């Protein structure tokens, strides 16, 4: 069991964002996380990656208890994430951005600064950004920023990557390129993926298991085919009348 979450709760003042969510992810799985807007998906991801401190519950990664651990320790253990609105380092080039990921990730023996940047350029080439390696991150387009986020997360050699809505805002051509990119990532690196997504086509095709969140609670979990036809889920997304 790579990631195990037990009864995770997070309150913001009086608002309960995440309420007693428990889930587990095995190694090698591709798990999707869906739910209507405001269900608490990104909050859950922030809690797991250490960005927020949880009010109750336990998170265990690879056998190590990471509840309340600092984000950089969590990253060293092998948990990577991307951001829904890409947050690159604006003043650095794409190469330097991924370089931070390479050099700050797990401690790699015999890696000097130059070797690190070389490895970063390999990551960039994998996502297809090698031509833009010397462009400042503030000058990249949205698709390139998403690819940069993925490259930076990959550069820290994670065992589990949490991807946050990589399709939002992309036109269909870019969207299919993004899906292919994630597929290649799975095939070559054999990483476990925990994917938040709104685009149902992607969820149906790419994921093996889907977890559904609604108002901060986990209401269903299972293979995509079953989830899509479940009346409870349809009610959550579209309302009672249609279900």
């Amino acid at each position, binding site marked *: 069991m790579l990631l195990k979450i037990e009864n995770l709760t997070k309150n913001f003042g009086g608002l309960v964002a995440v309420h007693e969510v428990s889930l587990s992810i095995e190694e090698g799985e591709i798990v999707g996380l869906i739910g209507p807007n405001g269900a608490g998906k990104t909050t859950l991801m922030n809690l797991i990656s250490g960005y927020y401190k949880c009010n109750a519950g336990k998170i265990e990664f690879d056998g190590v208890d990471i509840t309340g651990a600092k984000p950089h320790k969590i990253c060293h253990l092998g948990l990577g994430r991307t951001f829904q609105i890409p947050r690159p380092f604006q003043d650095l080039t794409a190469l330097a951005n991924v370089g931070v990921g390479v*050099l700050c990730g797990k401690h790699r023996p015999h890696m000097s600064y130059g070797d690190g940047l070389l490895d970063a350029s390999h990551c960039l080439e994998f996502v297809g950004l090698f031509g833009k390696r010397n462009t400042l991150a503030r000058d990249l387009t949205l698709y390139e920023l998403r690819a940069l986020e993925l490259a*930076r997360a990959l550069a820290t050699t994670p065992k589990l990557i949490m991807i946050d809505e990589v399709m939002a805002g992309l036109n269909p051509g870019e969207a299919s390129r993004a899906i292919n990119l994630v597929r290649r990532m799975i095939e070559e690196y054999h990483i476990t993926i925990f994917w938040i997504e709104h685009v149902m086509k992607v969820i149906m095709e790419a994921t093996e298991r889907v977890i559904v969140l609604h108002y901060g609670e986990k209401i269903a979990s299972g293979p995509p085919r079953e989830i899509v036809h479940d009346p409870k889920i349809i009610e959550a997304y579209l309302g009672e009348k249609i279900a």
Partner: protein
Amino acid sequence: MRIEHKRARLVFHIRDLKLEWAIEPRYWRNPLLAVAGLALLPLVIMSKPDYLTLLTTANIYAAVAIPLAWQMAGIGRMNFGPQFFVGIGGFAAALLSIHLGWNPWQTLGIVILLGLAFGLILSPLTTIAKGLYFSLITLILPLIFLEFTYVYTDIFKGETGLSGIVPLVNLGRIRTNYLVSCYFSLGMTLLSLYIVDKVLRSRIGLYAAAINDDEEVAETCGLNINGWKILCFTITSMMIAVTGWFAAHYYGTFAGITYLQLPFMVKILLIVMIGGRGELYGSIVGAYFVAFLEQALTILGPVNYIVFPFVLLVMLSTLREGLYGLYRRHKYREYYPTMRVRKR
């Protein structure tokens, strides 16, 4: 430890770390030319001691501004009170020298330790205080120190300053003293320039850039931001304290009023910004420019106090990239940092 030579760089293997040092002549040519020029300058103007003092002052300003280039990026906030550490270094050197009669080399050791200690004590501020509040705290710190010196006037001689500090070099003839001190200051500046340059070109410089840009994302990528911020602040504070030590021993007097108040802070800030907007080599250019301008304008008489800030204001608004930008504007520049006072 193993050392090998590959493709114009020396590679050091220490346990499982690998460090590289480039020795390509193309990379070193311009800096070596500049250093040679700076080194020959004192010999040229050797006949006029006031010019030598001017050069030494310029070197002192540069030595304060150089660690700031690392500090401002490495802690992600603007430090509005670097003169606090100048004060610490200077007062420590002055008091030890006057009351215990220690010579400069003994006081240097104590100043380094004190700089590290105070830097370490104040470093939690970099992790706790958010951007604007950190700048305000550092703005107030030197003023607290100054008020302290006024309250305990018998020790610190608040109004008049301490005098009678053991001079740095005493070789008999005054001319040689000035010349040797000038070279000493140049050596100190170039040493700190070399250290900070090496740091900024290595992975630590990349970490500093990441911290300056977006701390939280850097932490998600695996960077231990608190550790690196504390390290940066402590070491740069120590380097600035050493500058205070040099100023105390060179001038023979050290007064809090000169160094701990707002005008000195403004001068340092302007050197950093006019020189090159946080660029390292720009600090030297800015320091020499400000020192020479200050001296040159004294021919105008009392009006120079008005003209000096005015010229600096004009330069600040017209030169986008500072003076150093005039040299580098047509060259490819890898990192152009934004200085952040308030995080948005």
